[in-house]
């Protein structure tokens, strides 16, 4: 019971911290503006004449998250270390993993909130046609899981350094790899390079968030995709705990 209480307390504090600073509002406004612009202007939502959000709305999410999620995650540990509050946090009667999960959960919930605030686009498509709302829901779930995977990677980079800027840059690069591994031009390039090594291409593309997000966009809740995202999150949070422990020992 106690772990749950501790995680909740930490999550609550982190969420308060987000909304006490302008970061939260700036993030949400930019995320919504980007979504609106790309869906309706670049994605050609109206021109398509489809009652679907897959190729006009969700298509862009891996790319938005590339910059926005590291911006949310960069302060998680870097700031604790810079200000020195890490010392307070880790001398409280809580296990380090509770702090890691609590802080991650707060940021993930925050990203979830930003995602929920895109609801007008769902209303729009329902007003104009009759889309399959199950598909839309699956895609939202996939988008949120993908954001969680990016965020967990940002947790690692944030724990590595005291500087938020460094954390941001490293985490953008790491997330870019997660995208590019499944980006069609890159896949083609890999296939040309390895004429008789399809397995290598498969291994690399299986690490891509795009490959795993595709299913969700089509409304397919494949357990393999869900497990992929959850295992990225689990592995990254575990790595974060190892890094934090290493800092304290040496």
């Amino acid at each position, binding site marked *: 019971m106690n772990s749950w209480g501790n995680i909740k307390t930490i999550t609550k504090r982190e969420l308060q911290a987000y909304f*006490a600073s302008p970061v939260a509002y700036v993030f949400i406004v930019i995320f919504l503006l980007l979504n609106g612009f790309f869906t309706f202007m670049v994605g050609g939502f109206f021109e398509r004449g489809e009652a679907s959000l897959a190729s006009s709305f969700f298509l862009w999410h891996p790319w938005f998250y590339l910059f926005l999620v590291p911006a949310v995650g960069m302060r998680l540990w870097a700031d604790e270390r810079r*200000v*020195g*509050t890490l010392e307070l946090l880790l*001398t409280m*009667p809580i*296990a380090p993993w509770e702090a890691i999960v609590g802080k991650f959960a707060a940021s993930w919930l925050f990203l979830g909130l930003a995602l929920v605030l895109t609801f007008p686009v769902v209303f729009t498509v329902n007003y104009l046609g009759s889309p399959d709302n199950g598909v839309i829901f699956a895609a939202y779930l996939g988008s949120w899981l993908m954001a969680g995977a990016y965020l967990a990677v940002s947790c690692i980079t944030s724990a590595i350094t005291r500087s938020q800027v460094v954390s941001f840059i490293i985490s953008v690069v790491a997330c870019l790899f997660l995208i590019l591994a499944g980006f069609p031009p890159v896949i083609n390039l890999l296939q040309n390079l390895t004429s008789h090594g399809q397995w290598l291409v498969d291994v690399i593309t299986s690490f891509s968030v795009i490959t795993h997000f595709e299913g969700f966009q089509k409304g397919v809740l494949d357990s393999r995709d869900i497990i992929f995202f959850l295992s990225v999150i689990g592995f990254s949070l575990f790595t974060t705990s190892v890094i934090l422990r290493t800092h*304290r020992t040496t």
Partner: protein
Amino acid sequence: MIKVANLTKTFGTKRAVDGISFTVERGEVLGFLGPNGAGKSTSMRMITGFIPPTSGTVTIGGHDMLENPIPAKKLIGYLPENAPAYTDMTVQGFLDFAAAIRGLHGDAKRAAIQRAVELCFLQGVLHQNVETLSKGYRHRTCFAQSIIHDPEVLILDEPTDGLDPNQKHEIRQLIRRMGATKAIIFSTHILEEVDAVCSRAIIIDRGRIVANGTPKELRAKSEWAGAVTLRIQGMAAAAVAEKLNQLRGARKVTTATEGDRVTVTVFPRVAGDGDLTREVMEATNGWQVEDLRTEEGRLDEVFRSITLPDTAGKEAKL
């Protein structure tokens, strides 16, 4: 309450803390002294469980810090060096968080916050953002956090650093009051604080304990302990020095002339020798002695003589 045994911490090849052992019981206030970089903060970080020791053990109220950290940490209130606090919260919010994570809820939490706020004089800034607080208030906010759960063990790393003299006085009073029922360790490099607050003091240098005792015992180690200073009118310094140098208990005599008065200090052969005063009084019988006093010894001098200057290696940054 606090038991530290053979605590050692090495950073790379540097031994920051080198086998220190001591215990602190309830009702004791232990002063932790030492030059910068002597290993005070590193020791405190190990005692509070922030960094694991390379070897050695820390036991808080019977709980081993390494093997059973949560119950051990529950007993501790900790004020880290530089008093960090979440800058993106109000004082109220910060204390609320500190109380909640210590397992306080509802009325108990409200009462705990109220008590800590009153003890640390934070009423005026309760709804202010921590970021906008002056250094003294920020310090007290972090201090309030450390006492919010009325802990049995308090570890305070330079609790009066950066405070104005009034605030320093208040915090010292507070520590001394709480020292009656708690086990307290606090580090400082202000020696008056040791006299004002501590029941016992440890001097640590280059990671080792070089002195351990009550402030009085430490002072007795000074060459000034038991020295006799007197002011004499109408005599030549040389004559006075010659006469007093012949005393059995005198090790050396220093003189300073000011007008027709000579101020003489006779240092004892054995520190804290009580007989010297009597000897000096007998020897000076008939002289025009205006003032005569026995020194208790000086802490700063003890401190300087047993710690080496410039141990100023960098403290571990985390």
